[in-house]
């Protein structure tokens, strides 16, 4: 039982830390990779809560589909967050 508590605590800290990192990071590719880490840890969480089907869906959507779509979006726009803001300000 104590093993479960320790594992859940470590995973929860890592989950919150990587989610915060995804929000505050200015390099958008690093933020996308951080989203992948969030999805990975969340999938292990679902697995530990005895829901393997939810973990399967989270793994499929989170690490493959979201990463691919976001990387294609970054390729078509800008990689740096500040540049994007400047472009928007010039446009409007």
């Amino acid at each position, binding site marked *: 039982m104590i093993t479960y508590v320790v594992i859940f605590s470590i995973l929860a800290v890592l989950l919150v830390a990587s989610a915060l990192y995804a929000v505050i990071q200015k390099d958008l590719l690093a933020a996308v990779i951080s989203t992948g880490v969030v999805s990975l*840890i969340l*999938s292990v969480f679902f697995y530990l809560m005895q829901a393997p089907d939810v973990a399967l869906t989270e793994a499929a959507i989170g690490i493959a589909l979201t990463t691919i779509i976001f*990387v294609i979006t970054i*390729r078509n726009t800008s990689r740096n967050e500040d540049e994007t803001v400047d472009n928007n300000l010039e446009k409007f």
Partner: protein
Amino acid sequence: METVFIIVLSLMALGLLLGFLRFVKGPTAADRAVALDTMSVIATAALVLLGLMFKRYIYIDVALIYAVLGFIGVIVIARFIEKAL
């Protein structure tokens, strides 16, 4: 047998923690991509071990799907860094 599981799970949690440290520190995006791949492999091994621990062998399918899809995600990031996507 339970002791073995606890020791191995603790070592895997340590490996996950070290991979996360590299992920936070990594100066370039390539470091972070490799850290994500490392964490994904460790998580896959942990999922297999937990399936063995719960004695539900259907759980191992999750690890299988995770291994295949994690590879695809890291390949996409690598192709983008290579400017070849």
